[in-house]
């Protein structure tokens, strides 16, 4: 198709007119800063301003760059989930049809995934108002510690869930905290990310005060999906239990222990967690009682060792969770799924997969 370059150019000019006007207003407002007009105004227009304004040429047409846009009434659940997996500085972020997923990993041995389901969001779409197709996916790497700092810029309400949970496996205050957060006037969030990649833009609003954050992202490095590796082999045991029972075990274990042994068998001791450290050995047996193990199935007895330092990252998520599902596959890979109550009766899950120590025998 032949296009008159002059016509295409003028179309381009017209298309950008609205934004150019915004741009000049912005420059007048203050020495190159992004000043959101009429705060609290419509977030969408602000997001547009904060995003880089370039037109991309696709084929013969000029088009405005497309952004992914999502908004949350309250930033609290996002903060809670991010905190659950923040054992590394950077994490992989995937925006897909089902929601947003963060994956953190350490030493190619432990991998954690946190999900922000689409249902949690008030908006979840492209900037031209079309929904994400099932096969559309954006993925990038982001500094989750910085992201956490940005999300808690207004502080306060998110702090509660973290303070009790991270280092104290008892985490007694962990469960009621998100509920308390919901009662305070929530800090809302609008997030946007260019389809073509670039900066992650966050707009947080607390009453009439707005904070804009532009966070650089990194290209995705390829990683092995340990969750897929786990699924490749048949699962031999499945347990669902209240997280409190597991928290007790982790509180009991001497933290000088270098590794931890998990024994699961169809008959006694059913579930045994043992570890030995400088202060001595500890061994915990769980009875096969529905009070303790809500669901228990085991086809083949197994005994596997895991590095304690690789289980440590799970403790934050465990502390925040109410229920835990433990699964072990044929080759001893451990999968733990923590059910975490977010604000307003929302539930989400954080998945961990931990590889066992290869026994040299």
């Amino acid at each position, binding site marked *: 198709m032949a296009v008159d370059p002059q016509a295409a150019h003028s179309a381009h000019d017209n298309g950008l007119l609205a934004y150019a006007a915004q741009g000049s207003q912005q420059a*007048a*407002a*203050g*020495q190159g*800063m*992004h*000043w*959101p007009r009429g*705060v609290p105004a419509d977030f969408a227009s602000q997001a547009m301003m904060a995003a880089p304004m370039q037109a991309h040429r696709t084929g013969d047409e000029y088009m405005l760059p497309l952004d992914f846009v999502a908004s949350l009434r309250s930033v609290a659940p996002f903060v809670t989930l991010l905190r659950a997996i923040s054992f590394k500085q950077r994490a992989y972020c995937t925006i897909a049809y089902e929601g947003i997923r963060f994956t953190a990993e350490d030493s190619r041995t432990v991998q954690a995934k946190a999900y922000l389901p689409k249902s949690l969001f008030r908006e979840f779409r492209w900037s031209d108002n079309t929904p994400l197709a099932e096969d559309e996916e954006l993925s990038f790497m982001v*500094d989750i510690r*910085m992201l956490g*700092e*940005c999300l*808690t*810029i*207004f*502080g*306060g309400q998110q702090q509660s869930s973290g303070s009790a949970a991270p280092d104290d496996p008892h985490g007694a205050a962990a469960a009621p905290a998100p509920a308390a957060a919901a009662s305070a006037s929530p800090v809302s969030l609008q997030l946007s990310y260019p389809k073509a990649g670039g900066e992650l833009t966050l707009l947080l609003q*607390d009453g*009439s*005060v*707005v*904070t*804009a*954050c*532009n*966070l*650089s992202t990194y290209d995705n490095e390829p990683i092995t999906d340990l969750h897929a590796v786990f699924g490749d082999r048949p699962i031999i045991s499945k347990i669902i239990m209240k997280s409190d029972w597991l928290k007790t075990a982790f509180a009991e274990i001497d933290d000088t222990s270098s590794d931890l042994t998990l024994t699961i068998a169809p008959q006694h001791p059913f579930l045994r967690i043992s570890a030995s450290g400088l202060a001595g050995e500890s061994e915990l047996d769980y009875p096969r009682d529905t009070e303790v193990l809500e669901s228990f199935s085991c086809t083949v007895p197994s005994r596997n060792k895991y590095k304690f330092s690789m289980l440590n990252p799970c403790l934050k998520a465990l502390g925040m969770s109410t229920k835990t599902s433990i699964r072990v596959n044929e080759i001893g890979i451990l999968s733990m799924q923590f059910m975490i109550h977010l604000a307003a009766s929302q539930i989400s899950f954080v998945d961990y997969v931990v590889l066992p120590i290869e026994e040299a025998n």
Partner: protein
Amino acid sequence: MRMRTKITHPSVLMKLGHTLERLHKQWIFHLTPDRLHFTVSKADFQTGVQVWAQLSTDTLFEDYRIESASDNHIWLEVNGDHLLRALKSGSKSVQMIMRLSKKEGLPVLSFTITNQSRTGKLVILVQDVPVRVISPEKTEEFREPVAPEPDVHILMPPILTLRTIAERMKSISQRLILSANMGGQLTMSVSNDIVKVQTFFNDLINPQLDPTQVDVATHPSTGRSRTEFAEAEVDIRDFIKFVQCYQLHPSKILCCINERHCLIFYVVVGDDDDGDKLDDRFGSLTYRIPLRAR
């Protein structure tokens, strides 16, 4: 030189002390018949935060008597920790008396604190805080300098909001850019190699200038476009030192940006009037934060 008074509100003095503590350990006390002035002793205010506080003696003291050869003014230098300890002992007292006296030839601020024990008996505690008396001719360096005329002046948002934001921003960068205009807008901004964070406040008040104090017509903020921002880059740790004044429950804080010299915060306590007039009868603190070059 004589000074004796009952301290009716040791807690107010204590909060003021906690606010100043972060700045410097040595404090300058300047007592006059109607005002108690505080400053921290730091010779060069170009390099750090400087603060001048003044509280009305009526709100703090009772039966206050002061006499001196220099117009009934007394200047003292005191160690902040020592003073705070004495004030702490008096925080739940029935009566607290402060007087200037001499012990073994050295000047002290002597606190006589009457506490009530659980059984109702009165326990008297005397705490002496050593002081250095500053002679009138050496007080010049501790006097509050004339503030440069601000390019923009604006009332700050609630101090607790500022405090939370500043604490978070500290983990992002050491430099904070504060900018404001005469149209009620104020921005706090920090950035590092990977993130840029800006917080925007709108609908703030730019108080009217007092024509009895300044020449409104020639004041830099008068002829300025409402949308034009004035910007100040400061060390965020300096800003956090200022934010410590939340402990005094300030009623109003005026921010004055002078783009060439400094950032000044004028913190008013005890003025519950909603208007945009600043009433410092009860007390006020002036923070002067040096600008940092980019």
